């Protein structure tokens, strides 16, 4: 009992010292405050996967009221700028080749006659250099064409090539899609729901690794080692203030998304708080591990980037992990951010509670435990 109390008081003393240092670190405080605002603006206002203002070119070989109506219907989807018209196929292809347009719609000769007879056909040329946008707008145009009512006799539609373009007979079965949780498929909701995950990864990893290495460089780490505290107590004490700062960042992220964009967590706030603790601890632990391997700040920076980069990419926080190839998807499961973003989106967007996020919490605890074991093994008291 006495031993435990001493341990707690040791940890507390180190935490107090660390917090007073942090309070005077203007760079750190600036980063803590500026980053959330910047990311909120970026993901709330600037970034979206949804095509918009797409530039396209139309080659109409036989202008008619009908072909103009088709062009108007494509434009009415709202994804496109007003079309540019070209006189020849070559000219249109040239625009695509220079990246001046994403899509070339070719309306053939005799379009009106064929369409009225139910044999209408249009050609679509897409710029494969921009696959994400091309795949989407290609299917939008095909969809418009599929439902285009020429007013004459109608005929069976045969499927076009390529799986994502494969629009064919709509007649036999109809499909009524309903998008839950985010009916208009706004990317803003997708990004802002997991904003805290991105911010805390940046903060926890870089703050703990750079902080510890900085002390080693300036020699204050050795002074702390000479105190009657064990290394693990020092590490815990150093991390405590960061946990507090992390909850502050979480609050900023939630308030910013809520007040700025109306995206409040729909599920349990308590579950959100509980979920965050093992994630913050695991991220800080990675930072500690990094600092225990390197000798200089430069090395710490490289190694931190080495961890942050795959975290952001493979966790699915920005790019959906469900669509990644097998193997890559599984590698991402060892990254704490994977589980945190799953939990965050379940709570914030789907209105989940503890029943929905127990698995992410357990996974995060397991990752933290594994990291702690690694740190204990690495962190023998050593000088220099």
């Amino acid at each position, binding site marked *: 009992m006495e031993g435990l109390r001493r341990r707690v008081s040791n940890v507390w003393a180190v935490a107090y010292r660390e917090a007073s240092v942090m309070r005077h670190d203007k*760079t750190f405080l600036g980063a803590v405050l500026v980053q959330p605002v*910047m990311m909120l603006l*970026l993901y709330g206002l*600037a*970034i*979206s*996967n949804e*095509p918009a203002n*797409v530039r396209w070119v139309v080659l109409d070989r036989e202008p008619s009221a009908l072909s103009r109506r*088709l062009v108007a219907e494509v434009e009415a989807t709202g994804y496109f700028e007003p079309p540019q018209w070209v006189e020849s196929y070559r000219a249109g292809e040239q625009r*695509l*080749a220079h*990246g001046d347009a994403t899509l070339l719609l070719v309306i053939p000769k005799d379009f009106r006659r064929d369409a009225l007879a139910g044999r209408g056909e*249009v*050609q*679509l*040329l897409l710029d*494969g*250099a*921009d696959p*994400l*946008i*091309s*795949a989407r707008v*290609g299917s939008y145009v095909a969809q418009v064409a*599929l439902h*285009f009512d*020429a007013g004459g006799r*109608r005929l069976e*539609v045969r499927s076009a090539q*390529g*799986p994502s*373009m*494969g629009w*064919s*007979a709509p*007649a*036999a*079965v*109809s*499909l009524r*899609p309903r*998008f*839950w949780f*985010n009916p208009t498929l*706004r990317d803003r909701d*997708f990004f802002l729901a997991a904003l805290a995950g991105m911010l805390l990864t940046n903060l926890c990893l870089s703050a703990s690794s*750079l902080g510890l290495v900085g002390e080693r460089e300036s020699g204050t780490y050795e002074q702390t080692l000479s105190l009657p505290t064990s290394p693990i107590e020092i590490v815990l004490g150093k991390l405590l203030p960061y946990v507090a700062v992390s909850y502050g960042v979480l609050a900023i992220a939630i308030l910013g998304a809520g007040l700025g964009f109306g995206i409040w967590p729909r599920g349990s706030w308590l579950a959100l708080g509980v979920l965050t603790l093992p994630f913050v601890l695991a991220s800080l632990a990675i930072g500690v591990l990094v600092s225990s391997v390197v000798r200089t*700040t430069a*090395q710490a*920076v*490289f*190694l931190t980037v*080495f961890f942050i980069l795959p975290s952001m*990419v493979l966790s699915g926080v920005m790019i959906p992990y469900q669509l990644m190839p*097998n193997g890559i998807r599984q590698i991402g499961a060892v990254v704490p951010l994977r589980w945190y973003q*799953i939990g965050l*989106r379940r709570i914030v967007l789907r209105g*989940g509670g503890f029943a*929905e996020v127990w698995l992410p919490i357990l996974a995060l605890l397991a990752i933290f435990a594994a990291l702690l074991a690694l740190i204990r093994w690495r962190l023998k008291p050593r000088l220099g």
Partner: protein
Amino acid sequence: MRWRRLRTLLVREVRATLRDPFTMASLIAVPVMALLAFSYVLATDVEHLALGVYDASASPASRRLVAELGASDAFDPRPFATRGALEEALVAGDVGVGLVIPPDFERDLLDRAPGAPPPELQLLLDGAETVVAGNAETFLRAIVARTGGDLVSGQAWGPSGHAAPTGLRTVTRVLFNPRLEGTPFMVAGTFGFVLSFLTTLITAVSIVSERLTGTFDQLQLTPATSAEILLGKLLPLGAVFAFDVIVMMAVAGLLFGVWPKGNVLFFLGVSSYYVVTSLSLGLIFSATSTTAAEAVQKTVLFSVPLVQLSGFAFPLRSMPAVVQWFAEALPATHYIRICRSIYMRGEGPLSMGGDLLLILVFGVALVWLAARTLERRA
């Protein structure tokens, strides 16, 4: 500027860089890792996505439809006994897509009165995952339309009996990347990411640590001019990153079969010039910071919007007009555009004159600014 002094400085930098094997290793390893991480992850299609199916019809026709969905490679159907169970799985995030087949599906499909609406399948999608939901809907539509047609046309009375389909046939051709794969797109963009972010970061850190140890002040006491010190710093690091470009090209080519379609030498030339531009930016960050942590924070704060707004992962044209203007003012935007033009469309220098000119101007301006900053600090 004297060649002899510059050479001495170059030798010093090269020795200092080579002496630290850790830094050398990360200079090669981080770009390659970025390439590997990025090139796999962008998917325009759907593969083996869990699809929850509640089949209230339990008929040969519905079973055939589910089997077709499973055979497509796009979806892995998982049966649910009740609609409630399927909805719960969707809320919990266990499945991203749910398909509800109504009880009268087979009857409506096969014995439909002329003029009656076709049987309706209900598709429930998890809109929280915007990209997954959008892609999944497109794919399911295609498969259901095809299978539905097959189911009906397999019947004796043929397709003439049911409601006439409408619409136009679309013949699609994709230039440059016929299967719309994400890998070449991301590979070309990763050059931009590595040469914009990592270069800046590494210079920022390396010079600040020199300032901390005091060797930078010694350097400024020598007769070397600030332009010479600048070049002495930039050229060795620039050479390392030019080497990185070659390594990344080889990895992308050998591993993914993605080689540049345009001129390789032209690509190397533009990339080397761009490296000097970003290195100068890192130099400015480090010259205006007092600690390494500050330099790192500055770089990160600057690089996050730079990477996100440069069109590396998110489409530039989808951004609001003001943001687009801002993005055009970033050198990375133009470099990434050039990378994709050369890598995917095989364009030559003439057709991208505007971007090249801007990169050139940015480069001169940043190098000049870096030299000025060093002078002022001296």
